């Protein structure tokens, strides 16, 4: 395996890209060099993904040029991007779960064969292992990819780039749904790649990571690069100002507090899903915002889905205001007064091809009938309610008839929330609601959750970003390996305490195979 070539320099100058009705790139500039980790920041909709798609050859710019080592270059197709040595790790995993790790690492690079047809499995495994060893990933190349954690799968994607001798790595929100130790490992990996002379373009909404990992940053706003410079020359306040285009005071958030006398709203007793969740019990008070921290794979999502009825638990019960509920399906969960905003927004949250209006009214369609009990929804009444919700949640969409697919992540999340807002539910479970959402959008989501708690609803906030839990919740539960292992109370819970609770002494999440 030859090392990457030295001195790659990619310069994009004055890129312009029109989408119907919008200027996605407005003379955007970006320079990425070998041996540097380059952070790309900006709000959702600032043009980050568009510029990455140009580099990936997925779309062609309407204007501007790209120079690679001084040569004007057009990247016609994803294949051409591959030939240039560009590798992309997208936010959504783009690997093949039913193949093995090794088959994924070498996917498209030519497997070692006998007679050009029969794959030599052992040679393939050895070749993949060489690459994986460079990442110190400790992943067995023969393991089925589906058996890996999300963090390990990201490592496999990176290994694929390494195997292709990539000169430029573009990572789009690579740490979404990774935990701190996994992020540490990724950090070390990227820095070692950088030191080997690879150029790295790193897109993230997490400012702490930008400061910890990147050498340089480019900030985009409304399709143009508004700042380019060394990361070390910036501080958090300045960066936020650049991202939002205005001065926003960076205040320490004050967590929501629950009145001490608040009655119990929901009790979960002995929830068990064999091998995933083990005998979990907790209670939620009226008007409480309860945090649930843990590593990916700790069983948080599974626990929440079982409470809501999306999956069946082997045993355990849910009591609402002291009354035992029968919850065997989401329908019964909703009837019991529980709603779940799932982690996987794209695949579970909403019907993306539906208009904003249709998504918002989906669970409560029978409230919008034209007359009496006839099951004919009145489009006019639906529209009125949808417009009202768009206003209340300040969702950025020109028309409620637009397909939800075309909204940004933050606005999609708000649409998913909007459909439950007036449902009369008592318990709102938010599973990673701020994943892939920009700074302003996150703040809005926190405010919406807090407002629900202020109305006396019970809110459960599941997150892998512990600072957002400590900033919003005054009681936080920690799950590890399917069990509740800690509970923290007060307005000044520290992230460190949560992190400690998440790891048992022998835990080594990335080394598992």
């Amino acid at each position, binding site marked *: 395996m030859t090392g990457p070539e030295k001195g790659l320099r990619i310069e994009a100058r004055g890129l312009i890209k*029109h*989408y*119907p*009705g*919008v*200027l*996605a790139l407005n003379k955007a500039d970006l320079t990425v060099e070998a041996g540097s980790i380059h952070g790309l920041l900006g709000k*959702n*909709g*600032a*043009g*980050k*993904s*568009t510029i990455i*798609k140009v580099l*990936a050859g*997925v*779309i062609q710019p309407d204007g501007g040029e790209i120079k690679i080592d001084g040569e004007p270059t057009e990247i016609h197709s*994803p294949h051409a991007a591959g030939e240039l040595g560009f590798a992309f790790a*997208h936010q959504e995993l*783009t690997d093949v779960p039913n193949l093995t790790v090794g088959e994924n690492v070498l996917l498209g690079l030519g497997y070692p064969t006998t007679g050009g047809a029969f794959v030599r499995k052992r040679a393939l495994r050895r070749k993949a292992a060489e690459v994986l060893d460079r990442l110190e990933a400790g992943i067995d190349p023969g393991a089925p990819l589906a058996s890996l954690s999300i963090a390990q799968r990201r490592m496999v994607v990176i290994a694929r780039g390494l195997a292709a001798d990539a000169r430029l790595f573009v990572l789009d929100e690579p740490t979404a749904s990774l935990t701190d130790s996994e992020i540490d490992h990724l950090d070390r990996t990227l820095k070692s790649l950088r030191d080997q002379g690879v150029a790295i373009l790193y897109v993230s909404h997490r400012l702490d990571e930008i400061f910890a990992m990147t050498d340089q940053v480019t900030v985009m706003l*409304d*399709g143009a690069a508004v700042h380019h410079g060394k990361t070390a020359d910036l501080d958090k306040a300045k960066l936020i100002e650049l991202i939002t285009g205005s001065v926003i005071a960076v205040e320490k958030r004050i967590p929501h507090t629950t009145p001490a006398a608040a009655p119990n709203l929901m009790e979960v007793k002995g929830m068990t899903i064999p091998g995933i969740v083990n005998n979990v019990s907790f209670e939620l008070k009226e008007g409480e915002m309860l945090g649930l921290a843990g590593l990916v794979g700790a069983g948080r999502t599974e626990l929440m889905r079982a409470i*809501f009825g*999306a999956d069946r638990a082997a045993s355990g019960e849910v009591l609402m205001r002291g009354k035992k509920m029968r919850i065997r*399906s*989401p*329908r019964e969960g*909703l*009837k019991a007064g529980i709603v779940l905003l*799932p982690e996987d927004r794209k*695949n*579970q*949250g*909403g*019907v*993306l*091809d*539906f208009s904003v209006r*249709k998504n918002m009214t*989906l*669970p409560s*369609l*029978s409230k919008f*009938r034209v007359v009496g009990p006839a*099951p*004919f*929804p009145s489009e006019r009444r639906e529209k009125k309610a949808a417009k009202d919700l768009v206003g209340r949640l300040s969702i*950025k*969409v*020109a028309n409620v008839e*637009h397909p939800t*697919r*075309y*909204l*940004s*992540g933050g*606005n*999609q999340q708000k649409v998913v929330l909007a*459909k439950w807002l007036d449902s009369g539910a008592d318990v709102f479970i938010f599973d990673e609601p701020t994943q892939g959402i920009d700074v302003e959008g996150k703040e809005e989501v926190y405010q919406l959750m807090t407002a629900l708690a202020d109305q006396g609803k019970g809110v459960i906030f599941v997150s892998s970003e512990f600072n957002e839990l400590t900033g919003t919740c005054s009681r936080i539960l920690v799950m590890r390996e399917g069990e509740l292992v800690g509970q923290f109370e007060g307005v000044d819970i520290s992230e460190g305490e949560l992190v400690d609770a998440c790891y048992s002494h022998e835990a080594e999440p990335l080394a598992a195979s």
Partner: protein
Amino acid sequence: MADDLTGSGQGEATTKAAPGTTAEESSGGGRNFSLAMIAGKYGLLIFFGAVLIAFSLLRPNTFPTGENAEAILTLAAPSLIMAVGLTVVLVMQDFDLSFGAMIGLAGGAVTTFIVTNHMGWALAIVLVLLMGAAAGLANGFMVSYLGGNSFIITLAMGTVLTGVEFALTHQATIYSGFPATFLKIGQGTFLGLNNQIWIAFVAAVLMWALLDRTELGRYMYAIGGNQEAARLSGIRVKAFRVIGFIIVGVAAAAVGILLIALSSSYSPNGGATYLLPAFAAVFLGAAVFRPGEFNVPGTVVGVLFLGVIQTGLVMLNFETYVINLVQGGILIAAVLVSRLGAKVA
């Protein structure tokens, strides 16, 4: 992967559109947008119009006549009933390949009940419609509740239904013994039009109302769009998928009965020829009005279009193989155009 990327990119773009887009930009992009949109939405309709004009010019004395129009509509009526029923399952992303056999079974059953068993024709019709519902229920239960793949389950069910048909009729061809009142259903007229046209019209209006005007229809589209999101929204996904199969079963039974009443005769396995044209019409229909989405108005256009092409080509004395080539080619083109339209929209 490429699709995925494009999707999220447009997401970015739209967010930005809301606050500050200049008039220049939006009109520039807008023009391309609307042209492509028109091509995607109405391309098939325009083509349909052109075909009508072409046939009318080539056969001015026989094609553009009221008589011919009624003939085409009568020919298309059973297909239309089948196709609008099929639209419902396809909306939910399920497949039903058994309805061709169900049409045959319904014909065989109604013939046996009336001719062999001397049953009253009204009772026979009710029983056969119930058989259709039962077959649909069985399909739906196995697919939705037991998790069978709808493609394979309904394919196998088709074989079973044909078996039942042959058991009832012993594969005999029957062309006498039908009471006149029964035959009137297929051959009589109402307000100057063949009864079948009216029945097909009512079926189309009912299915349109179901899918586009009722809560159930909205839920069905939600199931097709994202089954898991629909389930988490509290929608009875399994039950509604079963309802879809029942609708197809009943539609097939109705078509089977009508075909017997129309031809006053039964021949074994007569439904198979209706299977693929119904799919063709529904997929053609997804190329009009709402590109990329199955919809009843589109299905109606699809059925009429196929009917016109068929009749027109026959009038022009083309040989069967030419008709096959043209019909197949048009279907391929329409499906590809609808893909394009869906991407643009």
